[in-house]
């Protein structure tokens, strides 16, 4: 296992942590936090796949065009892969809407039961 693999491994650790929170925690809010951790672990993995090593002697840069059209060639050679970044942006937006919905549901559930504890609700087990 090379040093380059370390971020990937850490990302998977994050993924497992999120899953653990969803499965093991009884508190709805903690379950929601677990969902968000899981979501961001996947985003992190996706954005990591965009990292590519540019030609020798140059550092990878963000794919943002600052110097006008003339600079485009140079940018294309050194920039990290922009596709995963676009994907992650989309995925974050989706994560946001899921988060909004799940929080709304949790608030409604709190209204009904007066608690966030899943054990005290009837259907939700695990």
């Amino acid at each position, binding site marked *: 296992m090379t040093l380059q693999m370390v971020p990937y491994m850490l990302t998977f650790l994050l993924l497992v942590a*999120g899953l653990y929170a969803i499965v093991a925690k009884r508190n709805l809010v903690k379950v929601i936090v677990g969902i968000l951790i899981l979501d961001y672990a996947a985003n992190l993995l996706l954005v990591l796949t965009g990292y590519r090593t540019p030609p020798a002697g140059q550092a990878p840069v963000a794919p943002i065009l600052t110097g006008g059209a003339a600079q485009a060639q140079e940018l294309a050679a050194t920039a990290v892969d922009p596709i*995963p970044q676009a994907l992650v942006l989309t*995925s974050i937006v*989706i994560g946001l809407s*899921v988060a909004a*919905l799940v929080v709304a549901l949790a608030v409604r559930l709190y209204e009904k039961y007066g608690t966030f504890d899943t054990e005290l*609700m009837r*259907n939700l087990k695990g």
Partner: protein
Amino acid sequence: MPLLVAIPLAGGFLMPLVARLTGARRSAAALPILLAAGLLALAVWLLLAAREPIVYWVGGWTFPVGISLVADGLSRLMVVVVAVISLVALVFSVDYMARFTSPGLYYTLFLLMLAGMNGVVLSGDLFNIFVFLEVAGIASYALVAFGTESDELEAGFKYLVLGTIASTFILVGIALVYNVTGHLNWAKVGEAITAAGGPTLPIYVAAAFFLMGFGLKAAMVPFHAWLPDAHPSAPAPISAMLSGVLIKASGVYVLARLVFSVFDGDAGLGWVLVVLGTLSMVLGGLMAIGQGDFKRLLAYSSISQVGYVVLAFGAAAVMRARGMEQAAVGLAVFGGLFHLVNHAVSKSLLFLCSGSVEYATGTRQLDRLGGLGGRMPVTAACLRVGALSISGVPPLGGFWSKLIIIIALAYMAVRGHWAFYIPTALAVATAAVTLVYYAKVQRFVLDGEPSETVLRAREVPFGMRAATLVLAVLCFATALLVVPAIRDRVVTPATEIVLGGAEAGRGGRTITVERKPAPPPAQAAADAPAQTIRLQDGTRQGETP
């Protein structure tokens, strides 16, 4: 073709305006029904217009920067099924949803879900499938919780949590695939995998994530926990949509695409699908017997019937990898697709009927119903037709599709691998089990002495009756799909796409369409096996030199 996605999306965003203008509850449904009818017309036209796969590059950008929409045989079949069921469910909604507030919100979510499903079946690349999956998913989470009683909220929450886990797994799988192959367009992904000499370890890890993710979406047995809560809690038309098409569009369809077009019918994945399908089929059926709640029973039945479809696809993948004759493989795939259509129609019908029963009596508990046959003749007749079709009684569609699956499995057991005797026997046994629990439904709901609640029941309004009647007629009509002439027009293109694996998928998915022109319809029936062999040869060349 992008209109198939854009129309429901635009409708969804116009709904708040319409709801404000009309004010009255019922007229708000006019726009979505009109749009769904338009979609149906468009989808049928697409199905009948051409046999060649159509690739549409959004914005005119082609590979590698463009986003493509693809309509091949399989997508067209799915689009038509989605359009039919959603139109009927919308007609049913007009009267059913009159008991709920905020009809504008309901139709908005419904149309968004429809847009998402059309997007899933038409997308040509993995990430857009994920995006549309989430569009459909988020709308359906909200719809499950629409009643805002504690049961609905809990079911919605559970559905949301498991659905989000599924989506995240799918995203992880996409990230892995992109990392290894550098492509998202799945024709290109399949090409890259074949070029690398078959799947490598990271690809198998990605496949495992995909299996878990789409398995959750399709509610196969180890991942089924959310479905029996979510489907009964939703309003009846939504249950019909969820059980009828959503689990197929977002689970089974994508799984079939992945296994055949991307992983090129890998035998290992095929075996996993066979095992999962058999488990779902048997356990779903057994659990359905014990249910006392009408809609919950139907939900477990969905798990069981989707198990049949997955089993058929898995068996086809295994058969293909082991080099069985194309006729047998084609039969299994055809059986799977056919059962998918049948189940969509009959399960939607049953859920709508359960909605009618609940509308009239106010309860879903089987032991509090009874004797409805006399009080609600139309609904009762439709309920009987749906139950008979799904449990496989001869003249109806469900019989033919189950028969075809079982024949294909038996053939595989005799000629191929001994292990297939087990799913074959279980498929037959489950058919009997299905008959048992639907007999129970009929016995408790329709026959016997009318109970207290039933005596006050009256036949439901016209819109709801019309919707169930249309689906009941369709239950008979799907049986026509075994007639060769109709089958070749409707289902065979889809079968070919599945069978052709990576090769045919690629032909349809790159800019240059390389597929040979289809034989004229008259010859097609005789030619079907020969043609699939030709496709098959093309695939084999890439694999085993």
